[in-house]
């Protein structure tokens, strides 16, 4: 699937390290299997050569890690960003979360990342090896022999609805830049809107009652960068380890969706990491869809410093009444 190889990225990194342009490299570290890749900071060339990986399982958006990584860094950090990651990168800069000067961005093309859950669903347990092909993967399994899977069946949700192959931030690009894409990402939201309030409530109750409040969705979210989240603060009165009923978690999710409204770039990390497979992106997309409809198209992270419609008053802003009526339709 990926057209660019790890060797190209390692060479680039090694070159930038040895010429002193950067002092460390943020990327992905290989795991025990082909699919269990971990975001990692590399400082050592041998480590980089042996353990740096780039492939179909590098879905992790590493831009948020730059907040921590740049804090004590004396030299620049090289970071490899996929197109969608660059939107988060810009949004973080808009919110002054780290110093741009401390980062050297190499934009890398992306063919869409694989979702190992989908692969496991189709190939079963006992995955020994996953190799990439032009338009999919070949999986060697313990129990079901060798299975080929097509790209469209194994892509991460966000990649299936990829919004852009264009890098909105970089110091250097590997390969040709892409363009903003037409996509169907609002279809599922429209389907939810078409439901009756009761159906919709049941849909969310069914989804959110699985939530275990691990907060991984928040922890991974590049728009959630508060130093101390209100939900982690025992003094706030809303820190919530003991749920009173199985649907209490809805409050957390609704509040979080409001909190990131206008800042969420739709990077899809929340849904990717949720261990309970809750389609959290649908909440955020509903906000994006509404913002687009009420205030005109707006893509968070497209440019650094842009003012999100929700924090930018204009005389043309829709009146609350109209919003309610429009929302009713």
């Amino acid at each position, binding site marked *: 699937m990926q057209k660019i190889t790890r060797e190209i990225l390692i060479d680039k990194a090694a070159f930038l390290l040895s010429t002193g342009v950067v002092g460390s490299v943020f990327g992905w570290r290989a795991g025990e299997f082909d699919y269990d890749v971990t975001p990692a900071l590399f400082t050592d060339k041998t480590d980089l050569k042996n353990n740096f990986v780039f492939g179909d399982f590098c879905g992790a958006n590493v831009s948020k890690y730059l907040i921590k990584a740049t804090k004590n860094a004396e030299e620049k950090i090289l970071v490899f960003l996929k197109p969608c990651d660059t939107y988060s990168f810009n949004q973080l800069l808009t919110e002054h979360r780290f110093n741009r000067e401390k980062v050297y961005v190499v934009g890398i093309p992306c063919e869409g990342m694989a979702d190992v859950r989908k692969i496991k669903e189709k190939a079963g347990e006992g995955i020994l090896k996953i190799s990439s092909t032009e338009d999919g993967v070949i999986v060697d399994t313990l129990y079901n022999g060798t299975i080929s899977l097509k790209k469209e069946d194994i892509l991460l949700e966000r990649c299936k609805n990829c919004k852009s192959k264009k890098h909105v931030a970089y110091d250097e690009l590997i390969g040709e830049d892409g363009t903003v894409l037409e996509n169907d990402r609002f279809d599922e939201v429209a389907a939810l809107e078409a439901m009756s309030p009761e159906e919709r409530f049941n849909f969310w109750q069914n989804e959110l009652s699985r939530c275990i409040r691990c907060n991984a969705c928040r*922890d991974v979210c590049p728009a959630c960068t508060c130093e101390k989240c209100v939900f982690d603060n025992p003094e706030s009165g809303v820190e919530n380890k003991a749920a009173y009923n199985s649907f209490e978690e809805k409050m957390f999710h609704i509040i979080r969706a409001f909190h990131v409204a206008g800042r969420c770039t739709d990077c899809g990390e929340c849904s990717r990491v949720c261990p309970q497979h809750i389609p959290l992106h649908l909440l955020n997309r509903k906000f994006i869809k509404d913002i687009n409809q009420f205030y005109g198209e707006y893509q968070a992270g497209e440019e650094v410093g842009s003012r999100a419609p929700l924090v930018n008053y204009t005389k043309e802003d829709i009146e609350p009444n109209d919003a309610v009526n429009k929302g009713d339709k």
Partner: protein
Amino acid sequence: MRKCKVENIYTLLGEISKNAKLYIPVDQVNGAKFTEYAEGLTLSNALKTERSIKDFFFPQTENLVDFKVSGKIIEIIDNRSEMEDFVIFGARACDVRSMEILDRVFLSEPVDTYYANRRAHGIIISMACNRPAETCFCSTFGIDASKPAGDIVCYKGENEYVFEGVTEKGKNLLEKLNAVTENGGEDTAKIVQTEIKTILDKLPLKDVKADKFGKDKTDKFFNAPEWKTLSEACLGCGTCTFVCPTCQCYDIKDFNTNSGVKRFRCWDSCMYSDFTRMSAGQPRPTQLERFRQRFMHKLVYYPTNNDGIFGCVGCGRCLSRCPISMNIVKVMKKLGEGDNE
């Protein structure tokens, strides 16, 4: 041993459910989940349930006690209802072993009566693992997936399920099922066991060793430089602790109801920033210390306090659930390869 034909398993399950609440693994949107038995439900073919059997004995939240205040009188209300017997069907070898680990925590003095009560009423029917996954490494901790512990052990052969009563509780239950089972099945059990052993030999993690860890190794690993890289991407989400069958830390929370207090016990996680927070602050100020705590607890502290028994059963749940794919196997390999003498 007793056996029943594969096609009669639902009759057998129906029989069990007449006398006790029965939970069986059923496929749900996000994987297999122990679900209360009802006619028409289908047993999942998945190897493991997403959550372990820990949830039955130590639920994520439970209302321990209520306090009712009227004037100067505080009434203490123990609102536990009478516990009924329940049966869990299809627990895997790792999950069954995890109960021993939890027992050592909750059943040692002072005994946790909530847990003890559930333990007394629960019967575990384990199931040998016909198809272990690539993430399994129970053998690292001396667990035999082809011969799990449990009150009753079950083997699923090509044509029949075979049952072996192990504990008193298990034997009694099995006897009650005489009408739907018949004698025999030893051959099938043997075949299943041999097949499983062949597969266990092919598992990618079969050589993961824990010998470097264990009792009294705190000084050896506590300050290892590897913790920094290992923990750097950890989100502190605590998913690993929630899905882990042996993680047993909890917090106690009081909720003001205006006329009193509702006291809850809820799972806590050493990965959280407010875990064991005291008036002087958080003793583990960064994610590095929190991350280290989880793995040191499994690999060093628990064995130190429990005759060398490890606090991990190699179920592999933290391998497949961690959002950043960091886990105990990576920790063991990394720390094991470094020279921390």
